[in-house]
């Protein structure tokens, strides 16, 4: 603390500066020494492919080191004896640095080749190499850091008389402590890296079997063998085991076997399990495989949707495959997107949903019987967003098919102007091709006024075709983009028994019919009220002999006032409610209403929020809390100031 600084230099110091007798006189030697180290690094690590260059640089570096050490020894002899201990310690640091280089050389490739026979085993050589690789860095850092610290302290000192050894010693100690701390930090980090352990705190839960899956299992009339190929103690198995044991508790017909694929190669080969982490379902000669994986990190995504995967496999195994026909030839949505199924607006996800329910999907055009006779194997016919009207013969064929106990899903769009009156009116329904809108957008996609035609609703009827939605109406919403609406009317023809129409999805009461499509409410032509967005039509009668083979003789039709609801953009990525609407609709149309219910899933869902929520979040996150903190801070500091 009392040590003189540059600013408090004495007259003798100034004289020393004038005569060049300063500790700084040795700095060029240290600079040469450090440059030699740099040259060696460049030669070893950047120019290692050129042996000649490497050798030249090494020679030059060694020469520089020799010059530096020689220069320091010469200074030691020439300087005042009081400065000699400092010069000596600098020489020691130089030599220690050279020692580090020697240790480096001992672990280099050529040294290992020379010493190789003495190690006994390659592992011993590796250990030797790793130990020396760490040691040379530690020795080098411990030599160079104190050297630099000492030079900083020594540079301004007058070497023509006794230098302040106490300051030099403190700087040396400081440098050594810093170097040792750095070396210790690196070493401990290296060890921590090797012994790394981790905890995953992100969202993960194993899916439990849903009520729907339990109902499926309870219907088993013959055993279903489930063979789980997992190693004995496995983290994934714990999750899978609890899922299947829950199902086993629901029905003893589900028989569980836990097998290690490695220990039972014969059985694994017989069932086609090439690795562990696989579940094989066996029913008679039929087999279905579900690959989950035996590493939890990889299996997570599968475990989250285990219930859905199980249901798909179960239906494939236990049920005969059904056929769903998509009408084509009227620019239907399915037809439009065939060449670009991945784009938004296609029906790729809808087709997958049907296939998951064990349906085979086929096209139905005029050539396939749409104008004359619906194929006998049809379980249901889907009319999704036609842009061209149906021919009278086609409408008549579809109506006749329905009257005989057929099943159909009809989804229409107001912008296409197709209302299918010939098909719908006989069943007491009318489609009005006017888009609905709401003044304040309930959802946002384009962030323009067009968003007013995005219909979001959680108003559902109690019909089985919307069973899941009505049970969870507080959590699930259905989203439609540019929906028309439905009205009930007396059936155009006297059908006996009369069709029963149930409206299943209603709009919110703030919707209005945007007849002129200008996104603004223009009364009196446009009225704000509750509109009907989907309807289920039923005609219950004894099964006629001419009824389609796939049906139970009961006419069932679902009409939805928008086909965008089923498109890839809305169906899966935005609104989970849309998926449940269609899933339950297919189950009801296919006569599987006993299976209606939600599929358990722990899959993460996209966060969709309304404009009001957007605004609330915006103000809360951007202004609310900062204003609160600022207000509190100003009040507190002013109060303190007033109180003195």
């Amino acid at each position, binding site marked *: *603390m009392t*040590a003189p*600084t540059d600013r408090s230099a004495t007259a003798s110091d100034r004289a020393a500066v004038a005569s060049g007798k300063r500790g700084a006189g040795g700095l060029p030697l240290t600079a040469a020494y450090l440059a030699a180290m740099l040259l060696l690094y460049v030669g070893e*690590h*950047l120019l290692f492919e050129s042996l000649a260059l490497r050798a030249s640089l090494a020679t030059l570096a060694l020469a520089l080191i020799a010059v530096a050490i020689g220069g320091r020894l010469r200074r030691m002899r020439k300087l005042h004896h009081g400065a000699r201990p400092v010069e000596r310690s600098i020489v020691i640091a130089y030599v220690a640095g050279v020692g580090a280089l020697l240790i480096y050389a001992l672990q280099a490739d050529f040294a290992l080749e020379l010493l190789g026979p003495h190690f006994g085993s390659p592992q011993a050589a590796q250990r030797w190499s790793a130990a020396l*690789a760490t040691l040379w860095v530690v020795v080098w850092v411990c030599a160079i850091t104190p050297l630099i*610290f000492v030079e*900083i*302290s020594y540079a301004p000192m007058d070497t023509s008389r006794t230098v302040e050894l106490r*300051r*030099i010693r*403190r*700087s040396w100690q*400081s440098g050594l*402590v*810093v170097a040792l*701390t*750095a070396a210790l*930090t690196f070493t*401990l*980090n290296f060890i*921590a*890296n090797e*012994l*790394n*352990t*981790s*905890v*995953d*705190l*992100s*969202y*993960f839960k194993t899916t439990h079997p849903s009520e729907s899956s339990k109902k499926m299992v309870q219907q088993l009339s013959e055993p279903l063998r489930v063979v789980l190929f997992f190693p004995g103690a496995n983290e994934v198995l714990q999750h899978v085991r609890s899922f299947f044991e829950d199902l086993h508790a629901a029905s003893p017909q589900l028989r569980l076997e836990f097998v290690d694929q490695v220990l039972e190669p014969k059985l694994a080969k017989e069932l086609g399990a090439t690795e562990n982490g696989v579940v094989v379902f066996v029913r008679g000669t039929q087999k279905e495989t579900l690959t989950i994986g035996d590493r939890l990190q990889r299996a997570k995504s599968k475990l989250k949707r285990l219930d859905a995967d199980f249901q798909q496999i179960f239906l494939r195994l236990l049920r005969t495959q059904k056929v769903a026909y998509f009408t084509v030839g009227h620019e239907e949505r399915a037809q439009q997107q065939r060449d670009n199924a991945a784009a938004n607006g296609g029906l790729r996800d809808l087709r997958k949903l049907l296939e998951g329910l064990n349906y085979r999907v086929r096209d139905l055009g005029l050539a396939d019987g749409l104008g004359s006779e619906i194929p006998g194997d049809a379980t249901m016919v889907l009319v999704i967003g036609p842009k061209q009207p149906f021919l009278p013969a086609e409408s008549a064929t579809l109506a006749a098919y329905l009257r005989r106990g057929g099943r159909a899903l009809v989804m229409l769009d107001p912008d296409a102007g197709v209302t299918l009156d010939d098909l719908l009116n006989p069943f007491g329904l009318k489609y009005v091709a006017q888009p609905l809108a709401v003044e304040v957008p309930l959802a946002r996609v384009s962030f323009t006024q067009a968003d007013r035609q995005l219909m979001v609703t959680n108003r559902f009827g109690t019909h089985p075709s919307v069973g899941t939605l009505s049970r969870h109406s507080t959590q699930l919403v259905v989203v439609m983009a540019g929906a028309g609406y439905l009205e009930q009317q007396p059936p155009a023809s006297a059908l006996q028994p009369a069709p029963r129409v149930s409206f299943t999805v209603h709009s919110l009461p703030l919707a209005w019919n945007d007849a002129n499509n200008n996104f603004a409410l223009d009364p009196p032509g446009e009225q704000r009220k509750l509109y009907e967005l989907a309807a289920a039509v039923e005609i219950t009668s004894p099964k006629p002999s001419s009824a389609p083979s796939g049906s139970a003789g009961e006419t069932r039709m679902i009409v939805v006032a928008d086909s965008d609801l089923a498109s890839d953009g809305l169906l899966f*990525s*935005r609104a989970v409610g849309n998926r449940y609407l269609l899933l339950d609709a297919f189950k009801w149309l296919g006569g599987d209403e006993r299976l209606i219910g939600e599929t358990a899933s*722990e899959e*993460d*869902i*996209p*966060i*969709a*929020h309304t404009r009001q*929520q957007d605004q609330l*979040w*915006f103000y*809360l*996150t*951007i*202004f609310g*809390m*900062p*204003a609160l*903190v*600022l207000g*509190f*801070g*100003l009040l*507190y*500091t002013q109060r*303190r100031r007033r109180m003195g």
Partner: protein
Amino acid sequence: MLLIARRELGAYVCLPMGYVIVALVLFVDGLLFNAYALGGEAKLSTEVLQLFFAFASFMTMVSGVLLAMRLVAEEHQLGTLTLLLTAPVRDGEIVMGKFLSALVFFKIMTLLSLYLPLLVFVNGKVALGHIVGGYLGLLLLGSLSISIGLFASALARSQIVAAVTGGALLTACYLLYLGAGLVEPPLRELLAYLSPQRHLQWQTGLITSRDVFYYLSASGLFLVLTTHVLQARRWR
């Protein structure tokens, strides 16, 4: 040490500047959260959380340096550093006291932003563990930023220079990850490991002992360096 920490913490709490910094950080956090994490296409809850922690990390580094810039440099500017260095406390205690005060204030500031990730609960599926892990990561990154800022503050003679030096050091540490791609092993692994960029797995909810150790040891190293910078005034 605790006395120094209390005195420094009082300086943050009793002056409006501390509140302005907190409000500013919360404002920018909220803006980024609203505009990028929640805005645009509907995103999965984990994505939203991950983006939030990514933005918060940036703000953590900025605020860490801002909070630390005054700790020693201000004493220098006001001429009270000599007084402090001649007081009957060790240099290490001075450094630790100042570091602790900034860290406590930083913790309060970070915890005040907790309402942002909790908003994801409204419509998404969030694991509390992910939020806890993320905040642990933010605190560790904050302690590293503060220790680097403190080191810069000890080197500089004015607060502005300290902030610029701290920012440059932190950026350099961050960019080591890019530099690692330009050199050969084993230096490549070393440089990559030294960069905080390599240790951000906590943003995804994965806490590794390696990352925790890295932040703690790197913070410790900079604190030791800061102590020696203060000590250097006695032997330079």
